[in-house]
């Protein structure tokens, strides 16, 4: 396993700056990043990450780190986001552990070259696809679930045999500091580095040249990352937010629907890229839905959510202000609405009488505010959804499978879930990612491994049977072409295209 953490000079020279609120934060300067990247690249080229044994050891170390320091993670996320212990353990730690264990259980299979179907001309050859690591990859997570969003891609990168630089979000400074402190104690010090940089340095860091950049965050930052990556022909995976629509049909069990929506929307104080962003409610059930949601909120967080240990806070003043403004300038408050700036607290809030032109419908709501719009029928809901940019998720609640089917086939999104929310983004067997404005590429489980690998095609022939290959050489004769076309049609009937080459 990895040696004890080396007292690297770089770590001693980290600058400690105080922010306005007096909270400590540390920063890795671009020059240091260059140095760390050089070390990671040297380690990769020396073949350190190639062997299965190494990758397994690193994955096991990730699991150990989460188990041994559970309390530290709960504490850090509690300070950064007021995240309840339950949410930290379930949605951050267990999620990463599952991914790591899934990778450990399947690594041997994933690393095997895949033999592919051969055609007539390659029957005597070996046709296979080898999964190769890319090199050094850059992983930039975002602050709403900093542990999960940095470590799940890291699991994929390790499994695929890469070295990695991890850039946890600066907003969640305690968590960033924790990761910065712990990772060198568990993972190989040459191959994996944690760097903490601000959003202003994004383009510069990407420009240092990695073999793949994995970015989770908002559209504006993603644009800068994509531009910087284009200059160095670096492939990117972007998982971005968006306004995830949630359609509630007149035929559904309102109580259960309300419970599932409330859980999805208000966990982590609404700061989730996969939560339902707004509801398109069938006009017949709107009143009942609002009532049911009100009951749920009471059940979940009590009469004063501020006192509840299960409810979070906004990560910083900037997001607090932004969400509060959207709340104040849109629709009508049906439930909640209280805000306390000193605590960055916004009560779980439901807005009704929201119209499309309201400010809250122009931006992603990254807070505990749920706008409800009414629609007359499924057609209107589908038309509304398709007018917007493609979101990360589309949700639909209905007991009528035809309605679900329509919502699914007539809209486009990163992923889709009916009669529940968020769960499709937690499963290791489904690819999770965006499309269009919500991103490109996907990850989780095998898809993480594939994202961070290069599929190298290998065709291994022999030098016998030259008597057959001569057909393809010049001088080109019509007779030869006819023979080849004939053989080509033969194999087209049986297996697909081939040329006797």
């Amino acid at each position: 396993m990895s040696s004890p953490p080396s007292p690297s000079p770089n770590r001693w020279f980290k600058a400690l700056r105080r922010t306005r609120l007096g909270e400590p934060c540390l920063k890795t300067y671009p020059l240091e990043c260059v140095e760390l990247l050089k070390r990671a690249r040297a380690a990769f080229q020396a073949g350190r990450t190639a062997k299965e044994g190494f990758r397994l050891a690193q994955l096991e170390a990730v699991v150990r780190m989460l188990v041994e320091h559970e309390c530290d993670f709960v504490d850090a996320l509690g300070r950064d986001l007021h995240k309840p212990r339950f949410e930290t353990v379930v949605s951050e730690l267990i999620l990463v552990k599952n991914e790591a264990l899934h990778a450990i259980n399947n690594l041997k299979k994933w690393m095997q070259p895949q033999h592919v179907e051969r055609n007539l001309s390659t029957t005597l050859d070996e046709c296979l696809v080898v999964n190769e690591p890319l090199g050094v990859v850059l992983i930039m997570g975002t602050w709403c679930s900093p542990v999960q969003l940095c470590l799940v891609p890291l699991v994929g990168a390790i499994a695929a045999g890469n070295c990695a630089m991890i850039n946890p979000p600066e907003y969640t400074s305690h968590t960033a500091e924790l990761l910065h402190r712990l990772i060198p104690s568990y993972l190989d010090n040459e191959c994996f580095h944690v760097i903490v940089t601000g959003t202003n340095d994004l383009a510069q860091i990407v420009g240092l040249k990695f073999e793949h950049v994995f970015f989770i965050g908002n559209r504006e930052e993603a644009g800068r990352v994509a531009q910087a990556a284009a200059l160095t022909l670096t492939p990117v995976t972007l998982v971005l937010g968006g306004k995830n629509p949630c359609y509630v049909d007149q035929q559904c069990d309102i109580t259960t629907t309300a419970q599932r929506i409330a859980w999805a929307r208000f966990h982590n104080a609404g700061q989730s890229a996969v939560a339902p962003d707004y509801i398109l409610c069938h006009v017949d059930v709107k009143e009942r839905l609002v009532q049911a949601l009100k009951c749920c909120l009471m059940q979940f967080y009590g009469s004063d959510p501020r006192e509840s240990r299960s409810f979070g806070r906004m990560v910083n003043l900037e997001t607090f202000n932004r969400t509060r403004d959207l709340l104040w300038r849109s629709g009508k408050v049906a439930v909640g609405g209280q805000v306390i700036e000193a605590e960055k607290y916004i009560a779980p809030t439901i807005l009704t009488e929201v119209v499309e032109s309201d400010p809250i419908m122009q931006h992603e709501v990254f807070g505990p505010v749920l706008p409800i719009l009414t629609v007359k029928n499924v057609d209107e809901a589908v038309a509304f959804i398709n007018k917007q940019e493609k979101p990360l998720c589309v949700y639909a609640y209905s007991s009528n499978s035809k309605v679900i089917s329509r919502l699914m086939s007539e809209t486009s999104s990163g992923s889709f879930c009916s009669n529940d929310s968020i769960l499709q983004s937690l499963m290791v067997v489904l690819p999770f990612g965006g499309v269009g404005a919500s991103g490109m590429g996907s990850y989780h489980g095998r898809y993480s491994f594939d994202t961070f690998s290069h599929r190298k095609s290998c065709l291994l022939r022999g030098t016998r049977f030259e008597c057959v290959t001569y057909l393809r050489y010049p001088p080109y004769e019509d007779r030869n072409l006819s023979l080849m076309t004939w053989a080509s049609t033969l194999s087209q009937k049986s297996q697909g295209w081939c040329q006797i080459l």
Partner: protein
Amino acid sequence: MSQEQKAVARARKAFLTGRSKPLEHRIRQLKNLQRLFVERQTEISDAMKKDLNKSEVGTQLFETLGLEGEINLAIKKLKEWAAPRPVEKNLLTLSDTVYIQPEPLGVVLIIGAWNYPWAVTIQPLIGAMAAGNAAVVKPSEVCAHTSKVMEYLLPIYIDKELYPVVTGGVPETQELLRQRFDHIFYTGNSMVGRLIMEAAAKHLTPVTLELGGKSPCYIDKNCDISIACRRITWGKYTNCGQTCIAPDYILCEPSIQDRVIEEVKKSIEDFYTDNPKTCTDYGRIINQRHFKRIMAMTEDSTVAVGGESDESDCYIAPTVLRDVKPEAKVMQEEIFGPLLPVLPVGGLDEAIKFINQGEKPLALYIFSPDKKVIKRMIDETSSGGVLANDCLVHYSVSTLPFGGVGNSGMGSYHGKFSFDQLSHLRGCLIKELKMEGVNSMRYPPHTPKKLGWARFFILKNPDLGWMGRMALLAILAVVAAVVLQVSYGGREERDINEY
């Protein structure tokens, strides 16, 4: 609105009507495309002759035969490719439906290249059509006759609103790139590839870039040199060296250099006669600019075979350069012409080291009878693809993904990979509003007990291994037996009571 804007807007409008989605439509369009190649071979070949001096047989062999095969494959397999793909379920999703649904992306931009204009422009189009997209096709203006023929023929056979052809040069391409697409597919060189990716980044559009590089070719001294050189000669001088996966340069030990050069010379004479200029099967350089670029590369190396040229005809003879040094001009960029440099190296180790110093190429060739040598090459170098003991032909295996890595590109296609590359694979979870009891453990207020249950249900276990699985199976069998016993016992009692 410019012509380009209009074409893209029309394509998007056509896509939004939904008519490109049904499988019947896609298959109909693919069949129409197939007819194009059957019925219009003469026009296609004539244009290719004027652009690249390609013979009619050569055109069919290298351009259209492959496309016909891909179309057939797509038609045959489309139903399977477009169907929902079920995934493994776990304890919590046993009663749910979980699958991946392939979906079209929208409007795709396909920018073709000039060296195999039909192959590299139409093959992505096949994938785009099969995946249910609309596609704007921009053939390369460098092969002027072929792009005119494409502009004229495609609208006759396939839906001209869904698949418009936009011709033009740099300004027209730039105007196209200002529009928003759902995917951009580019084949060409890495310099332009960067510009395309930059333009795409403005709209956060994903790209597939099929670029080039210097594809190395290592010849082991123990291989059958005569057959190896024959295949290399074919791979190198086809289309006058203007192939993205042509073997760019040879690495071999000094002891076999003379033999290699001699065998290549023999093969050149067999294929193209001793005066390739008059041979109908030998092509020409595409234009003056490339002619000058390639000729400049010969300046600081020794010509062993060939070397003749005729600027007025854009003719360069099949040429071999010997004892080439790594600093030579010919080793600084992708040749894309009929010059074959031979670099002597000490052996496999030196060859691998040299290859790894350069950018990752699109293809890597190795000629050796020894499987261990081949395995070392595969394991210790990186490239888009690897082909042992032959050249070019891995391109034709539709079950192998074709694409680059690093500087040679990103993304891959051919066969099903084209379909997947131009689709969105959407994760779908279909649940019902029942069994809410199970969900209650995740709802607040959070208690330690709920957390305990959550851990039990959600956390995976490390692999139990064979013994563990047997033990689990045994326990389940016992439980099942007990349950059955109790329920049957109960039923017997009830039956008796009914009498």
